[in-house]
């Protein structure tokens, strides 16, 4: 599975568990408007660390906080090198 597919799948899973309605996933989807709250993102980042083996927020030199789904995916892809 690609990183993008993994992220999208985990987002759907977290949304389901937390009873949130996830907006249709697209690269320009603004994360804060996608239906997930801070706790959902916290869980998402932890699940992705378990699934992918890394957490770019903790390991990357240049940490920035992505605004859109596309940026979020790119952040993970860059960290995967």
């Amino acid at each position, binding site marked *: 599975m690609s990183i993008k597919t993994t992220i999208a799948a985990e987002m759907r899973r977290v949304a389901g*568990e*937390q009873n949130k309605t996830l907006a249709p996933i697209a690269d320009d989807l*603004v*994360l*804060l*408007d996608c239906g997930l709250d*801070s*706790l959902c*993102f*916290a*869980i998402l*980042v*932890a*699940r992705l660390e*378990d699934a992918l083996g890394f*957490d770019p*927020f*903790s390991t990357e030199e*240049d*940490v*920035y*906080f*992505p*605004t859109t789904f596309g940026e979020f995916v790119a952040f993970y892809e860059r960290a995967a090198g």
Partner: protein
Amino acid sequence: MNAPQASAPGLKASLADRIALSGVEGRRLHDVRETVPLAAALSETRLGGAREALAGRNVLVRTKGQLAAALLLIELDGVARRLVIAPPDLDPAHLPAVTLDAEIDVVVGDDADCDLSLSAPRPHGRSDLPPHSTEWVMFTSGTTGRPKMVAHTLDGLTGAIKPSKDDALPVWGTFYDIRRYGGLQMLLRALVGGGSMILSSAEEGVGAFLARLGALGVTHLSGTPSHWRKALMSPALHAISPRYVRLSGEIADQAVLDALAAAFPGVPVGHAYASTEAGVGFEVDDGLEGFPAAYLDRAGEVRMKVEDGTLRIRSNRAASGYVGSAETLHDADGFIDTGDLVERRGDRFYFMGRRSGVINVGGLKISPEEVEAVINRHPAVRMSLVKGRRNPITGAIVVADVVAEPSDEALRDELLALCRAALPPFKAPTSIRFVEALAVTPGGKLERRLA
């Protein structure tokens, strides 16, 4: 203008006097619905004709919004004997105990069940009332059970506030609620330090708040690391251009400090250590997480030491004690144990979490025992240990180690569902790991190590 109360023997200047002293021209309090000039906050009453009746009384301030609370604090400091500030999430079930412990005479607010409801503003005669040195009582951000109250003075609460070095009036904004210690600090900074204040609102999203902060020209903005991470993820972040950025209330990690420095080039980013009990301890302005070990040797009004791994603070900004409890706050030397674990690496100390095992998820505190009790209800569970797992978004999330028979996927799903049904979302474990055994201390207690 009123006669300054500071001239009376043994009395300190009231908050209203201190605001007046710093000048009210052009200064305002904003929330999402209303803007109140500070001049009006000083000259008007929202208590109808009841203001006089509150002189020398113990008053519980319990309002829906922050602006009403701020105006009441300005109006009643120096008038009431004791001002107890109810946080927004105070459980009504605790009201009788709070009333008893704090010897409350009157509950003032905008709720139907208040003794005294707020009314439309009208001019008052402030100087008619005999001045009091008002005691300020705040709730600690506890986890479960009966909330603890601690007593402060206005002098102690404002002890860390230095006069503004800015020529232009600062416009403070805060993601915090001013009815908690961190937020109250920011309000007092704006009020006593000569600025305006923009208050957040529970129903306003982070994007809308950032847009409003930008439109009102915020210059000084504070929040917890979790608040800031959320703001950093918002496209509305570019709406603001602060001159000072401040974090406190949670451990500020290097990632969030770096991200803020990158988002606001050239703007000082400081993090502060404060607690409801110990007051404002110190500020760190070098852009690095943790604090310099040299702080332990600093003279001055705040003394620090590390004992048994936790940070201890002695300070005249600290609370004088608990209200309605015989529990002592200070040790024999006057130090308060903050309960925050620190570890020295090189010439710096780093925060390692709470000794009690309390987990801080985005500023919300969770007692592990409360979550363990829910997990332990399941007949297949023998033991469980709930702990925090470090997280770059909320600081920590809740995870659990469980000893159970049989330990399979079906049980994992059952336990997760059980917790989600019994607990608010931030308290429910986000993952469960089955383990063979859990370590127990010689005293027979679960060994709570840091995650």
